């Protein structure tokens, strides 16, 4: 395999061979996935490696393709709602929300205020749950096992809250066109408040245990740097984009629900421990978004009034007027866009989903060459992909 030839050995400007001999070895092709512990599902990355250094990487998708968009064109509007749960199963409420907002835009209905507040609380709770899993599994990717269990402990409380409000723990279909499925049960909002206090008190634990750990900083700072230009060129959104220092958040820049009435900060990567746009910054953005989400939930809890939660005219069989609608929302992973074309019948003419994981994943092919093999796991982990969403 190893060949040392006279021709390839380095020569200086005078053509005299230098002391070092250029040894070329054959690159190894490594199939990382579709069954691999670090690829968060059935992603397959074809890596080329020269020893421990990567010379290339290519993503192969489609192992979890379930024709979600096609199904959207063959079942009616409400029937498609449960399928939206399945693209990003860690943030199913946000998927419901994106689809519902698009359908509502087609229908031209306005959701009652209480429904909007409930949706905001739920969406932010789900963002916290999703970020907890993202940071926890990122710990697994760099070899720390314990933070994952701490993250699951906190997430468990959110899932309990979701179970109380809609009966499901993973695929909810709670937010639906017109509003939400039902009003919060008695004591539920107090439970959310308790969770906010709990999360505030435990956040520091996650920060100290994982993020401020010397080895974690060594493994993530200055690793997998995505510049702001790269992030924009590849269409990255969410923490991937904000980690690269681009101040762009759909909740603030294209407000939906009640986000324009809330006071919060958009977290942007600042190169806290390395350079702007490294894996550490993406994790940093996720960690502080948890804090901001808790802040938003508190404000919603203070402002929420009694009232209707669902628009009374939106039934189970929807026939929107012919037309098209695109709504993008800020999913935990980035911009989740739904583009729906209606021809006036009960079944959509076209449903197109812009999945954030899919666009965020593309950029890793650009940043993998030159990294170490262990960085591949760190980089894929920091993009926080959900294969259900990249493949749909």
């Amino acid at each position, binding site marked *: 395999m190893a060949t040392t030839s006279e021709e390839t050995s380095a020569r200086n400007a005078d053509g005299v061979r230098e002391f070092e001999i250029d040894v070329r070895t054959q690159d190894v092709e490594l199939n990382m996935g579709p069954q691999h*512990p*670090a690829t968060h599902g059935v992603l397959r990355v074809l890596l080329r490696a020269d020893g421990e250094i990567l010379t290339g990487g290519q993503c192969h998708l489609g192992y979890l393709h379930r024709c979600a968009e096609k199904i959207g064109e063959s079942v009616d509007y409400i029937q498609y709602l449960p399928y939206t749960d399945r693209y990003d199963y860690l943030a199913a409420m946000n998927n419901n929300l994106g689809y519902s907002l698009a359908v509502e835009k087609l229908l031209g209905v306005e959701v009652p205020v209480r429904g909007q507040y409930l949706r905001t609380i739920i969406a932010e709770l789900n963002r916290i749950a999703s970020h907890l899993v993202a940071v926890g599994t990122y710990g697994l990717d760099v070899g720390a096992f314990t933070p994952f269990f701490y993250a699951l402990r906190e997430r468990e409380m959110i899932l309990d809250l979701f179970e109380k409000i809609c009966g499901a723990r993973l695929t909810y279909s709670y937010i639906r066109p017109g509003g939400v499925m039902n009003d919060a049960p008695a004591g539920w909002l107090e439970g959310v408040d308790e969770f906010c206090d709990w999360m505030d008190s435990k956040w520091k634990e996650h920060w100290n245990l994982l993020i401020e750990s010397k080895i974690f900083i060594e493994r993530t700072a200055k690793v997998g740097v995505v510049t702001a230009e790269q992030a924009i060129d590849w269409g990255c959104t969410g923490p991937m984009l904000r980690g690269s220092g681009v101040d762009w958040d759909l909740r603030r820049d294209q407000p939906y629900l009640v986000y324009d009435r809330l006071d919060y900060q958009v977290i942007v990567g600042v190169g806290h421990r390395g350079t702007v746009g490294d894996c550490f910054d993406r994790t940093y953005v996720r960690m502080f978004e948890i804090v901001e989400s808790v802040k938003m939930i508190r404000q919603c809890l203070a402002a929420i009034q009694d009232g209707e939660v669902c628009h009374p005219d939106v039934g189970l069989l929807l026939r929107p007027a012919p037309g098209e609608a695109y709504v993008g929302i800020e999913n935990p992973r980035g911009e989740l866009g739904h583009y729906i074309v209606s021809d006036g019948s009960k079944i959509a003419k076209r449903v197109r989903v812009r999945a954030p994981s899919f666009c965020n994943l593309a950029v890793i092919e650009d940043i993998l060459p030159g990294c170490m093999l*262990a960085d591949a796991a760190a980089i894929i982990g920091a993009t926080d992909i959900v294969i259900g969403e990249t493949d749909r």
Partner: protein
Amino acid sequence: MNVAAIFPTDPAAAAAALAQQGNLATDALQGVLPAGVPWWMITLGGAGLGFAAIMGFVTVMSMFSIWLERKVAGHIQVRLGPMRVGGWHGWAQSIADGVKLLLKEDIVILGADKVLFKLAPALVLGTALATFVALPFGPGAMIADVDLGVYFIIAISSVTTIGIIMAGWGSNNKWSVYGAMREAAQVASYEIPFGLSLMPPVIYYGSFSLRAATEAQAGWGGLHWYIFDPLTFWVAIPSFVLFFVSILAETKRAPFDLPESESELVAGFHTEYSGIRFSFFFLEEYAAMFVMSGVGAAFWFGGWNFPGLSLLEGSPVLHSLAAVGVFTVKSMLLVFVMMWVRWTVPRLRIDQVMTLGYKYLTPLTLICVFAAALAEYLKS
């Protein structure tokens, strides 16, 4: 060396050679067996006795360690760990797992280098068991009192690496080869700080023998440990820290578990192993942890010495048993710290492991060696 000196044919010379070996198992056999039994039978019998003792101890200790590891991991990770098998806190979990591994299908994958693939687990476990020979469990409870005890342990434990490279290469799997290469690079690099960090106590005791080191720490009612010595503790503590970091790398424990890092290399060198062959690697890991911790306990923490132990000196058997208990507990405490570290910190990258080994640990251990020499000079 003269072959006749190693394998003497003359009975008197054989008896003398046996006595010289300082092999406690053969000594014991000589006391029990009638005179006239050929010397080679005594040697073989001693070896068999030693092997049985080590095998029994390692099996029980490893099973306990595996159960302990899972309980420690569980409690660190806000869960309980095994709770069902056997009743009290899942104490029989390791036995159940062992039976499961024994009964599993023994898969040798197509395309594997069968000889290497099958030989590797045996070599790895065998060398790990061999290192137990020199551990000073208690007075009269050593398999062999090797003069160069520590040297023997360093030398034999390095052979494990060859077994792991065989496993990685024989598996016909790129991830396994990566794991094996990482193991080779890592263990070869950390051999230097590991060996050097053992030099301060060797200088202090003036001996490579673990038994001599333990006996030198017997004073002060059993608390005259190297780490407590007021004249040298300033060398003992840093050298122990460096030693501990080195043994984490030598036994491939987190944060140096790169050869089997599951998030990068699936399972590293043992990806393709299953059933009893896999359990050999598993046993080796815990055996190596215990041996390394045992060296630490013997050199820094007084070995089997403990306050109150001298009260039992009237009864040699009881004294020996208590000493074995003390030594085992001390070693297990160090093993526990290794588990604690594993479940707390993330994993380093291979270049960071190398940087730590060559740029920091090696110079620091060298400084420790000089400091130890200086301490001895000042004392004299």
